[in-house]
Every structure is written in structure tokens, then in C-alpha cells.
């Protein structure tokens, strides 16, 4: 008890009306608690405790995502641009005529008519020496194709007629024949 009294007396002298410890004498927390409260810790406790705590914290949050997430402000315009580019690409693919066209519809027939008119104009510009070759090309590329078209249309007509009721068959054949002859 004398120890405490002496200690208190010393502290009182140093810090006026306070006792036990003086605020101006900052000490290590371990020393302070040991000296005034008798509480101690194992050697190197705080270093070991730090490792224990770090080992016990959940590490799931630390995993870095392998998926790169773009900010919406950047991602949406990029996605829209890509969609537009893909759309243009597909549209151009559909719009481009086939290299080896197979005539199956009436649009091609109309284009053949236009080509026939062009033929007359173009033939005026062809030299006499090349005229035979030009005619051969026209026959092969235009007239034979048109003939093939007519044949295909006839086949289509027959196939379609199979789905028409008997009562309408006659009129259907007549209409189809007229169309075919006109074309």
C-alpha cells in the first residue's frame, strides 16, 4: 500500500490534483496497464494476434473477377454500335446479287426485260468483229435463262395446282397459263 501511496504522491506532485498516472507521461499501453492494473499479455502477443486475425477474415471478397465489366456509359454505345455494324453487314450480304443467279421470281424477270432493252443499246456500240461473240453471250446469259425461268414457272404452277380444290382447278390453270404466256 505504501507503494501505491508513494506512486500517488509522486503523480500528485507532477500533475497537480490527479493521481495514479500523469497525462504528460505517455507510455506504452502494455506498460501502463501492467503498472497500474497488473494486466499483462504473452510475449509477442499482438504480432501473433494480427496473423491470427488476418487468417480468419473471409477472403472471398478478395477474388478478382475475370469478367471485365464495362461502365454502362461506355458499354451501351459500344453494344449499339456493334449491333448496327452487324445489321449493316447482314443487310449488305442479302442485298448483294448472287454470283450464279438462279432465277426463281418475277423480280428477276423484270430485270431481264430491262437487260433486253439495254442489249439493243449496247449492241450498237459493239464492233462488227465482236458482234458474234456478243450475241453468243447474250443468248447464253439472257435467253437461255429466260427459257429456264419459264420452265420453272410451269413446274411451280403444276405443283401449286395440286393444292387447289377441284372446283377451282380449271380457272386456276387458265389464269396461270395466261400469265405464263404473257410473261
Amino acid at each position, binding site marked *: *500500500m*505504501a*507503494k*501505491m*501511496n508513494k*506512486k*500517488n504522491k509522486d503523480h500528485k506532485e507532477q500533475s497537480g490534483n490527479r*493521481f*495514479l*498516472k500523469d*497525462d504528460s507521461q505517455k507510455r506504452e*499501453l*502494455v506498460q*501502463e*496497464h*501492467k503498472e*497500474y*492494473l*497488473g*494486466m*499483462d*499479455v*504473452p510475449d509477442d502477443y*499482438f504480432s501473433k*494476434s*494480427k496473423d*491470427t*486475425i*488476418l487468417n*480468419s*477474415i*473471409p477472403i472471398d*471478397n*478478395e477474388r*478478382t473477377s475475370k469478367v471485365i465489366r464495362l461502365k454502362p456509359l461506355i458499354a451501351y454505345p459500344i453494344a449499339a454500335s456493334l449491333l448496327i455494324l452487324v445489321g449493316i453487314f447482314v443487310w449488305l450480304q442479302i442485298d448483294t446479287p448472287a454470283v450464279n443467279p438462279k432465277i426463281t421470281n418475277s423480280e428477276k424477270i423484270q430485270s431481264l426485260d430491262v437487260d433486253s432493252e439495254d442489249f439493243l443499246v449496247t449492241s450498237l456500240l459493239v464492233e462488227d468483229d465482236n458482234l458474234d461473240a456478243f450475241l453468243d453471250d447474250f443468248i447464253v446469259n439472257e435467253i437461255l435463262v429466260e427459257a429456264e425461268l419459264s420452265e420453272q414457272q410451269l413446274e411451280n404452277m403444276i405443283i401449286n395446282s395440286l393444292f387447289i380444290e377441284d372446283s377451282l382447278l380449271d380457272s386456276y390453270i387458265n389464269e396461270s397459263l395466261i400469265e405464263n404466256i404473257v410473261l
Partner: protein
Amino acid sequence: MKSKNREPDLLKELRNPKLKNKAFKDLLDLYQERLYWHIRKIVITHDNANDVLQDTFIKIYKGINNFKEQSSLHTWMYRIAYNESIRFLEKNKIKSSLNLNDGNNDYLNNLSQDVYFDGDEIQLKLHSIISKLSEKQQLVFQMKYFDDLSFREISEILDVNDNTLKSSYYSAVKTIEEEIVSDTLQTN
């Protein structure tokens, strides 16, 4: 305090997933010891304080993104440490310095049985005097006197009015002084 000045930067780093682990290590370096002693004075023994300290820092790590900055970072951590200490005592039905007023000596018994308590007669006497204070007085006295926290910080941690805390603290100091003087006179 140097550690308090670092808090804003530390908080930003703790909320950055890439920097969180490094910042958490820094946080441990800065506050581990202070929180340990705060806890130790409530749960008394080293082993119990060690358990509560780990739980406290795990809660801090998990809850840092929910910290709303209505108080400073260190007072928020002290509050977690205090709550964890009380929860630990209730869970294990341990008598602490805070509930000794029912007249039993469990606190002093636990203290003397702790292998990491090597206090002599004088220190036991001080514990005995502190244990006679009310729960609020004990907390305020220890936080102010040993943990060097300001009344404002204690107010934030315990959610108690500043003036009430000051009143409790000075009342506790007066009681302890009177006990010491009385004990001194008896000794002489």
C-alpha cells in the same frame, strides 16, 4: 493523434477491393492494441479478450462497407468492441467489472485466476475500488483514464450525453480519491 489523421485515407482504401487487405493490416497495426485493452478491461481475462478481439476485427472487416460515417472510424470500432464484449459476457454468463454491484466477488476471482494478471496488493486494491463504482462510472472512468478517449468520443461510443458522462467521470474520480485517501489513513 496520428492514427486519427490517417482515418479518411484509410477508410477509402478499406472500401477499395484492391486495397482492402493492405488497409486492413494498417488498421490492425493502428488499433489492435488499443481495442485489446479496451476489451480486456471489460472481459477481464486475456483469453476472453483475445477471443473478443478477433470477433471484433472480423465484424469490422465485414461491416466496413456499411459504416455510414456518422462518427469517426475509431469510435465506430470502439463501439463494435464494446458491443462484442458485452455480447461475449452475456453469452458465456460471465460476471464482469460492469455487473459486480450485486455484491459478489466474481470479478476479483476471475482477475486473480488469470495467468496474465500479475498485480500486487496495490493493483488489486485499485481494481477493488473501481469495481465498486456503478457500471456507467466504471466504463467512463476506464475509457477516459486508461484509453485516453475524449468525452465526445465516449459519448459516441456509448451513445450517452456528454454532460452525463462528465458528471459520471468526475464522480468516479472523486470516489476513487476518497477510497485511496481512506485506505492510506487506515494504513498509517
